[in-house]
């Protein structure tokens, strides 16, 4: 194998070179801008993650799994995963092997940007085919075929998106279309170009036979140059269209993974980490199907994908509208193949509006958890603190049940907010008013620390989530009552009687996706009745519609969400719906045709008296 073209250059590489230089410059400037907008402490975290071996390992693993193989999409829908993986991984391998070929055969051209891309144009095969050459040619043809199969699927998907498991997909803009058609063209053109040159440069199972076929009716070598030109133009155009299209997610996703693994969070809207998130969105539209608001066609426009599109276009009014509408159930974040934390960006956006509200904290001084008792005997305070939370106070059946459970299991406990407490602060945080929540968080922290507890049992997942995330309660174990009850059952402190009821469990957003608690409640339910499956469970559970997350969704819209959620729960005709969040309980109770109970009530009703 040796170089065929002297100087290793031909004019047709120009479009590609313009494109690649443009995109590299663009990406570098973008990267610098992202880093500039990352606050100091976060930048330090990022630097540390580059020298931490386990962080490096995690970065590499995540980039391979998410950017190349697309494991997340595979898990959701194999064929869709294959489409992404074949293009991404195949293209990646073509680039890698291209570079290896250059390094092996024409080492003098190492580092020339276009050389590996157009390798087969510039080289000539002489004498016998070596095993090594055949091996690389085979690999190149194989990965080209892999990519082509993915492109084929992509073309098919454009026509029949249902076939690949997506109900709804986004409408592409101009740049998206240009980039899309270029992407479709790149690999068939490469196949053509390499096939035409296969007689000179050599080829493998794909390009060689094509070459022979072409020779039967296209004997002229005149076709070689135009196809290489076309291939180069397609590549160049793709790179130029990329920053303005959805394909920007290809380079940005890797950056997002690194930033996310370093523990960074959204601080500024549209800048810094948020910019990495926004440009990582591939506009795939999986979030349209995921959004609980999709029960009504008019609400489809509030999906996260459009939110991010408007962020890219800086359309403040529309951005605010979606940010306020969102239920913050987190399903779109959980299902996003790139893991864009759109809820975090929405929360950041909410900090920019309604900032002249007045807050009155004067009531805080009057709240105390342990009213002074007149009893002389010194009662040692219990290490378990029960924190019901304000939503639970609106559903007293849960409190009564918990009191009964504590009593039956002989658990000594203090009831933190029996006589009324202070809001946990999460409603304010979700509304984007984290600063306003600080005062009440401090008050609660002070009360909790004064109690001397080591474990807090919470009935409301909203409180649990905020205490885990925004409170500084080191050394105190925070558990939801589902975990607590499950532990009591495991420790044989609570005996439950089995009934013949069939029960379905609704995963509350804040408990499931929020705190990752899925198994304990199901385990409890299996101790009491027959657990039926819902249509959308765990990660895919649908918001009850009562979420405190939305600031502007009307009651009618919420009702439609609730009805849809209930219908999905009742798919297997259970006798009862069981949930583990006072807000879900309240919301479902009004709408469901079957009884709805909190898991604590279910347990309290079925305690076996010894």
């Amino acid at each position: 194998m040796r170089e065929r073209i002297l100087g290793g250059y031909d004019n047709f590489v120009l479009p590609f070179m313009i494109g690649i230089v443009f995109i590299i410059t663009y990406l570098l400037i973008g990267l610098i801008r992202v880093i500039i907008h990352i606050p100091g402490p976060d930048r330090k975290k990022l630097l540390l993650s580059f020298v931490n071996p386990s962080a490096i390992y995690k970065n590499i693993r995540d980039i391979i799994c998410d950017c190349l193989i697309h494991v997340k999409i595979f898990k959701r829908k194999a064929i869709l995963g294959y489409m992404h993986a074949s293009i991404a991984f195949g293209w990646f391998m073509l680039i890698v092997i291209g570079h290896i070929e250059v390094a092996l055969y024409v080492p003098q051209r190492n580092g020339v940007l276009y050389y590996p891309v157009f390798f087969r144009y510039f080289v000539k095969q002489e004498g016998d085919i070596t095993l090594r050459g055949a091996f690389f040619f085979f690999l190149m043809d194989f990965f080209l075929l892999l990519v082509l199969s993915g492109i084929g699927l992509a073309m098919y998907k454009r026509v029949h998106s249902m076939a690949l498991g997506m109900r709804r997909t986004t409408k592409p803009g101009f740049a998206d279309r240009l980039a899309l058609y270029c992407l479709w063209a790149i690999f068939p053109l490469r196949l053509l170009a390499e096939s035409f040159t296969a007689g000179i440069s050599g080829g493998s199972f794909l390009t060689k036979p094509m070459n022979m076929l072409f020779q039967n009716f296209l004997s002229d070598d005149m076709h070689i140059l135009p196809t290489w030109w076309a291939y180069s133009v397609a590549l160049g155009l793709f790179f130029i269209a990329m920053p303005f299209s959805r394909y920007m997610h290809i380079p940005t996703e890797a950056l997002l993974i690194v930033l996310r693994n370093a523990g960074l969070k959204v601080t500024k809207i549209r800048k810094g980490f948020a910019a990495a998130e926004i440009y990582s969105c591939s506009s795939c539209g999986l979030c349209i199907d995921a959004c609980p608001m999709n029960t009504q066609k008019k609400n489809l426009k509030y999906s996260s994908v459009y939110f991010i599109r408007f962020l890219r276009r800086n359309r403040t009014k529309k951005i605010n509208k979606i940010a306020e509408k969102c239920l913050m159930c987190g399903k779109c974040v959980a299902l996003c193949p790139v893991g864009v934390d759109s809820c975090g960006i929405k929360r950041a956006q909410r900090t920019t509006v309604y900032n002249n509200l007045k807050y009155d904290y004067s009531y805080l001084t009057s709240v105390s958890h342990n009213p002074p008792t007149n009893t002389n005997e010194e009662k040692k305070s219990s290490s378990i603190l029960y924190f019901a939370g304000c939503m639970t106070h609106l559903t007293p059946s849960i409190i009564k049940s918990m009191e009964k459970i504590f009593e039956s299991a002989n658990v000594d406990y203090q009831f933190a907010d029996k006589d009324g407490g202070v809001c946990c602060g999460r409603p304010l945080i979700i509304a984007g008013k984290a600063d306003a929540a600080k005062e009440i968080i401090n008050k609660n922290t002070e009360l909790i620390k004064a109690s001397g507890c080591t474990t807090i049992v919470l009935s409301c997942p909203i409180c649990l989530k905020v205490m885990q995330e925004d409170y500084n309660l080191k050394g105190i174990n925070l558990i939801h009552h589902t975990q607590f009850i499950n532990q009591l059952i495991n420790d044989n402190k609570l005996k439950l009687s089995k009934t013949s009821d069939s029960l379905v469990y609704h995963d509350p957003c804040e408990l499931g996706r929020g705190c990752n608690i899925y198994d304990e409640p199901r385990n409890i339910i299996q101790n009491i009745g027959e657990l039926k499956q819902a249509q959308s469970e765990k990660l895919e559970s649908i918001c009850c519609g009562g979420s405190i997350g939305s600031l502007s969704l009307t009651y009618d819209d919420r009702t439609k969400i609730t009805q849809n959620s209930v219908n999905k729960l009742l798919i297997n005709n259970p006798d009862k719906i069981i949930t583990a969040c006072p807000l879900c309980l309240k919301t479902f109770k009004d709408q469901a045709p079957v009884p709805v109970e909190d898991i604590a009530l279910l347990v309290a009703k079925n305690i076996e008296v010894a």
Partner: protein
Amino acid sequence: MAIKNIVVIGGGPAGLEASAQLHYMGYNVFLIEKNDKLGGHLGKWDRLFPQGIQSEELLNPLIKNTAGVKTFVNTEVVNINKLEKQYNIILSNGITILARAVLFATGFDLFPASKKEEYGYGIYDKVITNADLEIFFRTKSDSRIVNPLKIGFVHCVGSRDEKTGNRQCSKVCCATAVKQACEIKEVFPNAEVICFYMDLRMFGRKYEDLYLTAQKKYGVRFIRGRVSEVGENINHQLIVKAEDTLSSKPLKVTLDLLVLMCGMNNSSEGIKTASLIGLKADEDGFFETLNPMQGSIFSHKKGVFYAGAATGPKTLPETINEGRAAAICINNYIKEEINE
């Protein structure tokens, strides 16, 4: 036309009055009542606002006037079919009636208080509803009412409350609450009585007098603000949290009895029966009427009429007037049909 049959569904005040009037006009009236007694909610009430007359004083003559009406109690409508100019009505007792006109006087359901779980009905002993209190006034016995010293009334339970799906005002609960507050003061003169209201809608004749009497004579306290939640202490007393919106302060009181003024929903049985001939409830749950500005008697179906609370919350005089009006409308309708 030989057939002069008319079916009246619902034996409450509206149905009774309409039946009596139609019978008087010479029609062959069938009155269908699902319960074993005529009178509807009125039959369960003790005294009526604003004058405080006994419910029997109103109900007994209403029932008496229906003497010639064919009345079926414990009977439900199983099916209604529209024929060309008549309705074929099949009853649960096996009887089928061919009727020229059908009157829905299906009334209302009391809002189920347990839906507002934060008020603790069915969870705490000392929480009762307005209907429970009327039964207490009649029977003077209720295990939940034991010499209460502090009593609260919560207005607008399941009314003007979007979260329960009821945006509308139930119209009669303000006056009922004020009446009941006075009455309970008569039973327990030493008790302190507080009414938690959003707005006091004392719109009717002599209602305002009742409100003044409650304050002057009975010393009932009125606090403007919605109750947010109800808890219970070790002595099974109720801890009620509310906001006094006039002084913009949160408020916490300990009570021995809490009465929930449940509002009106359209009768669920009524909705079921009406759906048999494709009549729909409006967004607020009550039946849609043909032309709301021209009264609420006409439905979207020819020959089907409404009277009473089925088309929205109403006071007793309004309901009885509507029963009478419905009788005239039905009479006119049948005469026009004959002349055609």
